[in-house]
């Protein structure tokens, strides 16, 4: 990218299974106030455009973007909603700045999953209404089938998937933002009821409430406003096949394509060598392994072994999900991408406290929109 875009402020709120003391507006407001203080900007005066990510049926309101501007300071300003993940929102903010039309853009994502009483029914309503939904199944059947084929084709073992759970939930113990930290051994991680064999319940992230706001700025404004901006070197996003019947079940080609787009912009040819740490989607444990391979951090089938050898531990050669990931922090639905980006920003600023990694310069962030989608996004951040 000839022009650089900087992250000059981040703010968050929640990260707990329940946040009954605040409404969704107040949760968003808390994250926004922190982000604006961190960036040193006044939304009413300095911010040119606002981007939020949300889905109507999760919020329980049609045309949810109506209820966004007031609590993030966007009234009578350019505000628009992207039906995608937080990283789709981040990529949108980057594009707005690169047009030259906007200098400071705010990106927001949140989850109030605790307010949704029938989430499996709603997620099932994303299935094809003619081909799949009449069978009346919980959407985890899609993840179960994908995991089974992934293990079959790559030789990855269930134990290797279990070791991802152990790693991420232990990492979460050193992250005050993580709701699901735990000290488990492999046996405990593999135990528990099955969701959709071979996918066990403990290999699927529990949901959490939370809001994240990120303030982006053009290179010029970023340097003026912030001594240590975190630079967005590249962004990429891609969709695969919409239908279950024509998609590729082993390898998420769309994640590879999104990563290629981001790496090309960032000038990265050897991701394994250039990337210092990664925050990757782990909505299901096998996904972290599958995504590592699609992101070119290792060859297909190699991710499992890397995790078991400890290569992706915080002290390993390629730390993955030091934050605890979704397994450790909780699944924030479409805000997951921003949760991953938030950890990367804190690491690259040296503000990650007890889980701070030494001398990190380039972080990889990746997200996936969950079943039944084949939609993912990638960002390469650097300090």
């Amino acid at each position, binding site marked *: 990218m000839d022009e650089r875009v900087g992250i000059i402020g981040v703010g968050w709120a929640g990260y707990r299974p329940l946040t009954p003391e605040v409404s969704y507006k107040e949760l968003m407001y808390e994250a926004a106030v922190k982000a604006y203080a961190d960036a040193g900007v006044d939304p009413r005066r300095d911010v040119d455009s606002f981007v939020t990510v949300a889905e109507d049926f999760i919020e329980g309101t049609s045309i949810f973007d109506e209820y966004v501007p007031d609590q993030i300071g966007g009234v009578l300003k350019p505000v628009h909603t992207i039906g995608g993940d937080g990283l789709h929102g981040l990529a949108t903010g980057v594009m707005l700045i690169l047009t030259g039309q906007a200098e400071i853009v705010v990106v927001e994502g949140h989850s109030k999953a605790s307010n949704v009483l029938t989430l499996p029914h*709603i997620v099932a309503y994303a299935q094809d209404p003619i081909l799949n939904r*009449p069978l009346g199944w919980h959407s985890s059947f899609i993840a179960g089938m994908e995991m089974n084929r992934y293990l079959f084709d790559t030789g990855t073992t269930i134990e290797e998937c279990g070791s991802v759970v152990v790693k991420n939930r232990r990492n979460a113990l050193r992250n005050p933002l993580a709701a699901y930290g735990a000290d488990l051994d492999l046996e405990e991680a593999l135990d528990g009821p099955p969701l959709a064999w071979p996918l066990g319940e403990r290999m699927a992230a529990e949901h959490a409430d939370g809001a994240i706001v990120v303030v982006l700025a053009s290179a010029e404004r970023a340097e003026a406003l912030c001594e240590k901006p975190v630079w967005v070197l590249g962004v990429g996003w891609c969709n695969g096949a919409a239908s279950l019947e024509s998609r590729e079940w082993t390898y998420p080609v769309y994640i590879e394509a999104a990563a290629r787009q981001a790496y090309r912009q960032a000038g990265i040819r050897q991701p394994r060598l250039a990337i210092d740490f990664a925050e990757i989607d782990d909505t299901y444990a096998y996904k972290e392994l599958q995504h590592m391979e699609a992101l070119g951090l290792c060859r297909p089938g190699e991710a499992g072994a890397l995790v078991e050898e400890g290569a992706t531990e915080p002290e390993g050669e390629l730390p993955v999900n030091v934050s605890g990931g979704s397994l450790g922090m909780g699944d924030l639905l479409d805000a997951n991408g921003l949760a991953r980006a938030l950890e990367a920003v804190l690491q690259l600023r040296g503000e990650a406290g007890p889980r701070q990694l030494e001398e990190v310069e380039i972080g990889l962030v990746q997200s996936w929109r969950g079943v039944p989608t084949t939609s993912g996004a990638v960002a390469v951040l650097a300090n």
Partner: protein
Amino acid sequence: MTEKITQFPGTPLREADFEGGKILFRHDRMKAEYAWDTGIAIGRYLAALKEGYLLGGYCATCRKTVIPPRTVCEWCFRPMEAFVPLEDTGTVNTYSLCYVTWDVKRIKEPEIPAVIEIDGASPLHGILHKLGEVEQEAVHVGMRVQAVWKPAEEREGAITDILYFKPIEGGAK
């Protein structure tokens, strides 16, 4: 259309095509239930409704009183200063005589939705509600109205704790 394009796709159906097996179709219904956290401002607003009064919010920077209350002023982005109990009287800002229900059933006696500017809030600051005990012809913009509350024991902390707003005779209030 462009001269080049003559034929446009799209296969229109009539309601009758859905009978007698002419075309295949299926019904479905989404089970989507929620418990939306009311939080600080709206929680208090509902509690006030239960106690039988309307609650607003005051922004000290903009010197404005708004309803319903919110924790941040959308204009200056400063935290709202205080809750402000308001009157249950107001002025009709606009209204309609609606002969169709939300699920498109025709009704003979129209519902009369209205935006009612609430006394005690800043000008143009009102809420959506309905008018009652009023002749259709009498309703007009600027009409003075007062809330008719459910009896205290029936109130549950909801906007429907107010049954409707009725005209104030002679606009004394």
